[in-house]
């Protein structure tokens, strides 16, 4: 049993991490809240006084708000669907006996380690360039007119790039989950004559439920704040301005800090809604 002494030592050992994170959370959060109630334009007059909820109203009533919400939802939703569906298929494939499994695993995981600016730039230029990109070559090879990916099919392009980056993550987690599946259960079902599709729906999918939930929640949190992929490719043009990018533009590009901060508060609320669900699952796991 822990003594009183070891308890106070433990508290002391936790103190630096707790204090630092508390500061990291409270100081900027308080400042964002403070600015969000002010008309604050650093380059055009500075602090112009309190404005109540004006920034909050203006942020949601601006013409760029709903398109940004839509862009965010389409990107997050699109990437989630692609990575989860392909992730399940890929995880099941990688779980099968084969030669060189370790190498294939490495090939599949590799994109996750590519820094976002690199993957965005490589896709933008070497694959999606309408003249010299590899996809343009491929299109011409089949006699089709090459597509200006990032202007004509901007959302599809961004979703492709981000999915490529996150597919390894989904695959790896789902593979880990599949490998913990009791193979005897599957064999029993197989012997009882259950066809593959039935085995998938009744045994594999339910077993993966929790892993899929975790993939969705964690990816959502990261995907809500993707930045470099848009910064490097379209710069928010062609309908790819997400909520994160819109706030970035308000704050740093047009230096309307009050308005941007109100947007930031919205983003924080949104992320917290997702986070609550994730924390519940993680918290349950702690008790086990």
């Amino acid at each position: 049993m822990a003594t009183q002494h070891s308890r106070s030592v433990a508290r002391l050992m936790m103190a630096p991490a707790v204090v630092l994170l508390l500061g990291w959370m409270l100081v900027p959060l308080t400042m964002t809240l403070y600015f969000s109630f002010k008309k604050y334009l650093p380059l055009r007059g500075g602090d112009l006084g309190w404005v109540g909820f004006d920034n909050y109203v203006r942020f949601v009533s601006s013409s760029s708000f709903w398109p940004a919400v839509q862009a965010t939802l389409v990107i997050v939703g699109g990437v989630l669907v692609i990575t989860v569906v392909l992730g399940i298929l890929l995880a099941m494939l990688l779980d099968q006996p084969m030669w060189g499994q370790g190498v294939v695993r490495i090939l599949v995981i590799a994109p996750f380690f590519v820094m976002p600016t690199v993957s965005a730039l490589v896709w933008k230029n070497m694959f999606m360039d309408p003249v010299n990109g590899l996809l343009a070559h491929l299109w011409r090879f089949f006699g089709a007119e090459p597509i200006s990916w990032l202007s004509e099919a901007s959302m599809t392009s961004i979703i492709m790039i981000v999915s490529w980056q996150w597919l390894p993550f989904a695959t790896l987690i789902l593979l880990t989950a599949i490998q913990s599946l009791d193979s005897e259960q599957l064999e029993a079902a197989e012997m009882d004559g259950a066809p593959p599709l039935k085995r998938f729906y009744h045994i594999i999918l339910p077993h993966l439920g929790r892993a899929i939930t975790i993939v969705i929640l964690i990816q959502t949190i990261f995907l809500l704040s993707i930045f470099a992929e848009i910064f490097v490719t379209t710069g928010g043009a062609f309908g790819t301005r997400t909520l994160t990018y819109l706030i970035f533009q308000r704050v740093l590009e047009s230096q309307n800090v009050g308005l941007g901060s109100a947007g930031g508060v919205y983003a924080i609320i949104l992320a917290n809604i997702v986070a609550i669900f994730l924390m519940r699952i993680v918290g349950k796991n702690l008790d086990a």
Partner: protein
Amino acid sequence: MARTVTTRRKSLNTVLAWAVGLLIFFPILWTILTSFKTEAQAIASPPLFLNFDWTLENYAIVQERSDYMRFLWNSVIIAGGSTVLGVIIAVPAAWAMAFVPSKRTKDILLWMLSTKMLPAVGVLYPIYLLFIRLGLLDTRGGLVVVLMLINLPIIVWMLYTYFREIPGEILEAARMDGATLKEEILYVLTPMAIPGIASTVLLNFILAWNEAFWTLNLTAVDAAPLTAFIASYSSPEGLFFAKLSAASTMAIAPILILGWFSQKQLVRGLTFGAVK
């Protein structure tokens, strides 16, 4: 009982899995190949796969023109510094939570995790302003601190899940034998914790290396790491495929190699122990 698999089925799996694997890996492979071409060969039509004159000139040009080594050094300092600092702060905290748990331990852990969910853009201006006021803008020290704080929850969590697997009885036994707290940590716990700490360091180094929100927004010239170095190629005058590829290859090569070692820890680290 292991499932019996026919050679035919295994061959089929192998072919399919390799095809998919290579397809996913292809953009990286293509970037590496292109980095060894001349600019003319890089945009040749039809594209050249292996039948070109391999050259290293792009690497030399990129280094010469943009001083790659300086960006690399910044990346190493920022990613390494933030990871080491984070681990130094997190080890005592995780140790305390794993071995002297109290009723509040779970709440503290979950609260730490919740700080990780804070969208960066929501606090962009405050941090930007604080950086200007404190003279930290475009300094490596400033980024070390910010990236350390961003990754601290993950570091604490990973270490906590590893420490929890160390049987408490061993510590009890050491205590019975009269080991002081210092001896306990130094001679009993540390050797057993080293693999976990190593995995934590590895994964967080990778995360910090690839971080591209704060590194792009809080640096200009002096402290710019490889993420910013690559982003500078997005301007039209930098549109040379071979050089872009050489720069990209140099930016991702160190992490690809480290990443191979960390693939097992990736799952545990990024799911906060919820999937192992």
